[in-house]
């Protein structure tokens, strides 16, 4: 395989490229990152260079994984990109560990820790017609309160492969441990309108319960990437977000009923 074209892409104000001597891996990475568009007129503040090849994965000239096999390579590349972008974007955006999707012109943000089912839930929302913003990082611009898209691929773990079987990528060793799925429709920057904190409770009834604005602030702080770095700056921002949003706690008993509840909420 000949060397793939080097594609410059943009994510939350940073640009990045993926290159390397493992041309198949580079091509796979370029496929799953194709939702990150690059506008030549953009004035990006930073650039990240990810290299994948026979000597592992390198980010900005630092070896981050010395030996990575194809089944985990895309997962690692996605993770290292997100790590770099979160570090760079923390001065410009309020960053939350959250999935996000858009409907009716408003953004629904789903903050939750790892292993809470964010990706599965937002994949279900995408199936239901929502436009995708992210399954991992919700970046909110502090003044406009727009949620900026961070359209990394949906990183779907094996536990959700049954309920999302129709999203299975072509049989490929690069997706053997985690599917990296490109969503069909990416949302533009969208004003945050709903903040819903999901928890997965298999077999229990799905329940959507309103919460107070103060609880929204506390929940956002708990799931923030950059709050503790400068709490006195971000607390008023979080309060401003909470005042203008409807906040809920969502117990997810199963995917379909949770998606139905969120469709009703955003209708």
């Amino acid at each position: 395989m000949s060397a793939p074209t080097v594609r410059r892409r943009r994510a939350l104000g940073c640009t990045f490229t993926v290159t390397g001597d493992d041309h198949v891996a580079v091509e796979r990475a370029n496929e799953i990152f194709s939702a990150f568009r690059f506008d030549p007129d953009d004035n990006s503040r930073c650039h990240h260079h990810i290299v994948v090849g026979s000597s592992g994965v390198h980010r900005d000239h630092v070896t981050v994984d010395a030996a990575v096999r194809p089944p985990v390579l895309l997962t690692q590349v996605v993770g290292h990109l997100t790590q770099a972008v979160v570090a760079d974007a923390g001065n410009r955006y309020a960053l939350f560990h959250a999935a996000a999707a858009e409907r009716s012109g408003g953004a629904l943000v789903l903050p939750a820790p790892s292993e809470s089912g964010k990706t599965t839930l937002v994949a279900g929302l995408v199936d239901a017609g929502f436009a995708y913003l992210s399954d991992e990082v919700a970046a909110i611009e502090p003044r406009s309160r727009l949620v900026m898209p961070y359209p990394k691929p949906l990183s779907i773990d094996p536990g959700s492969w049954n309920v999302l079987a129709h999203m299975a990528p072509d049989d490929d060793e690069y997706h053997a441990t985690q599917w990296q799925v490109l969503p069909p429709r990416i949302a533009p920057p969208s004003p945050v309108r709903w903040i819903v904190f999901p928890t997965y409770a298999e077999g229990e009834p799905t329940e959507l319960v309103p919460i107070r604005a103060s609880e929204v602030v506390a929940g956002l702080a708990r799931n923030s990437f950059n709050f503790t770095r400068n709490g006195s700056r971000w607390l008023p921002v979080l309060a401003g977000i909470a005042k203008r949003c409807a906040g809920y706690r969502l117990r997810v008993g199963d995917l379909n009923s949770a998606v139905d509840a969120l469709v009703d909420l955003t209708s």
Partner: protein
Amino acid sequence: VSHAHNSIAASFAPRPHRDVVAAEVDDEVVLYDTVAAAIHILNSSASAVWFMLDGTATLGDIATDVADVCGIPYDAALSDVIGAVRSMADQQLLDGFKTASEPTRARDDVTTPRYSEVPPNN
């Protein structure tokens, strides 16, 4: 200046600790202790008291205002104000009550997801 818990009486004039920042949402206040990295939520009545703590107004002064506004007896207002302020002191939100030890009341700790250690995959 370090205060004893039993100093919280009508003549006491506390003020918020400088490490604590506040934001008002609806009729409640969210506080963030920047050193302990802990979030606290005050209910509406405690929130009203919080904004009157300026280091000069005594709890007796505040109770007088609360009694006037709420139409309740002064003694009842003072009891409520002292209770709220003692709770704030327990949570180390007030100047002179912060120690190196952990707060005694439940709090909502804020931790940052550590991308620097584990690449995200969820």
